[in-house]
């Protein structure tokens, strides 16, 4: 367990030793601030719903940039070999990496908290949906991070890992956007696997088991696949 924490800690700190964390965090906050505040006063309502919607959207594009290097860079530079030959299980490496990037993501999300208090000072903010939305952000973001980690485990090229993860993100984003064009049976299924539908109900303040389980399942599966991919080196 402590090994997992050590890996996670190193991963987390390494983001701040390089430019990636700063670039991603700044970009996300600038884009989010612009999108949110530009229209905020038109609604004349103290609500955070729009911010969470925008942040949910931005996640699809920002998360792949956070995860692309997780394993790909270690494989390219060969440090994976040193890491894995230490007394550590492959699963601990995957979980540690995931927790490390989740920590960075938490920093990113935490930096939006001032917005919440700004809005709360302007009017009567309904706190219920705010909490459920943050939970939703962690679930949706966590699933995306796991998918990104999975793509990073497939290759030793960060760019490929980035676009692979982006393609997956966009898939889960777009998959319910053309439902009227789909046959009914397929439409139900596509709606179920789309990220937005599950995130949407959390954003409205409804914490449903199916939504929570959905994100946890996707994330868990992605981590399991990443684990298999890491383990595969041993047998191939």
């Amino acid at each position, binding site marked *: 367990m402590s090994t997992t924490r050590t890996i996670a800690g190193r991963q987390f700190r390494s983001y701040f*030793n390089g430019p990636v964390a700063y670039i991603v965090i700044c970009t996300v906050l600038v884009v989010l601030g612009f999108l949110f505040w530009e229209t905020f006063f038109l609604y004349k309502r103290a609500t955070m719903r729009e911010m969470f919607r925008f942040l949910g959207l931005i996640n699809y594009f920002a998360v792949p940039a956070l995860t692309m290097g997780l394993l790909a860079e270690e494989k390219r*530079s*060969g440090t994976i070999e040193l890491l894995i030959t230490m*007394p*550590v299980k492959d699963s601990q490496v995957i979980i540690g990496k995931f927790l490390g990037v989740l920590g960075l993501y938490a920093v990113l999300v935490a930096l939006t908290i001032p917005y919440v208090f700004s809005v709360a000072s302007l009017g009567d903010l309904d706190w219920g949906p705010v909490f459920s939305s943050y939970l939703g952000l962690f679930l949706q973001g966590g699933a995306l991070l796991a998918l990104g980690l999975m793509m990073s485990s497939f290759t030793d090229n960060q760019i490929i890992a980035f676009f692979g993860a982006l393609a997956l993100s966009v898939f889960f984003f777009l998959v319910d956007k053309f439902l009227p064009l789909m046959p009914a049976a397929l439409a139900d299924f596509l709606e179920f696997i789309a990220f937005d539908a599950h995130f949407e109900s959390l954003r409205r303040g409804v914490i449903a088991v199916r939504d929570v389980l959905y994100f946890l399942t996707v994330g868990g599966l992605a981590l399991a696949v990443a684990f298999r991919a890491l383990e595969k080196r*041993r047998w191939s």
Partner: protein
Amino acid sequence: MSDVMIEARDLTKQYGPVYALRDVSFEVRKGEVLGFLGPNGAGKTTTMKILTCFIAPTSGTAKVNGADVFEDSMAVRNAIGYLPESTPLYTEMLVLEYLQFVAEMRGFKGTEARKRIKKAVEQTSLGDVIAKEIRALSKGFKQRVGLAQALVHEPPVLILDEPMSGLDPNQAAEIRDLIRELGRERTVILSTHDLAEVQLTCDRVLIISKGRLVADDTPEELRERTGKANFAVTFAREGADAKALRDAIGGVPGVASVKQKDTADADELVYLVRPKGGEDLRASLFRAAVDGGFTLLGLERRAEGLDKVFRDLTTTEAAPIESGRDAKIAEAKAKAEARKAAASDVASDADEGDASADESDASDDEEQG
């Protein structure tokens, strides 16, 4: 408990239809510095990756410090300090930060961690750069960080993949001294394709070629095995009957083969003489020359270098050796016989002796004897 620290048995690694390693068996004892020698792609790194539990063999078993790489992988990892090829490090970290990370990964905390880091830093003389970013270090210092990393948990076994590659001669010498030093109380396996390195650093050499083990000996034994001393004899061409000369030399007891060598000097006739055993034939060759009335200009005894042996072993169709020592010797003998039969091409490139085998060549030798 025996003093066998590493025991590999019939290691085979297959990538699809390609064998990266085929039935490789060897043992390494406590306190031995073992050199893994072979051309690129021969299977050195693959063997090391198996021993360090990075990959699994297709078949065969390996034990490190009594623990099986399969069943007791964590014990094996704890017993090994590993430096992979090209020294991969987290270059954005400070040296100290990195060593702290390693110590933590190895399960050391607080004062214990600090004590161990301090010791590793002292052993590798990293004190001056401890607060620097790894990426800012020279290659030699990076290599030291790599070694320090492998030493933090004071493992009984060190596995170093090409520890000297890419270093300038001074750095290489420093690292070599360090490895020798570390090898005094540890078992060390290092891989290299630099033969001089092996002669300077290792107690024993495994030569591996195309995934097979082709030699397992000390550097000296290995040189003797194929590279028996041979003799370059130079005569004045004037007034000498080449055939009579050849017969005279060939008639000396103990001579296995005689081969005329091309020479730049038209006034000289140079012969390469291979002895049957390891005996010194200079006296009898001299006497034969005098008795035959030939003018002897030079007589020189030369030892073949390890790189000649290396080339022979890794370019010929080498059969795998048995793990028993007797079988090895028998095979070496058989090989030597075969080589005698085909002495012709040996003679023509035997003049590439290495540095330690006294740098001389029949074509430019000085008058002797």
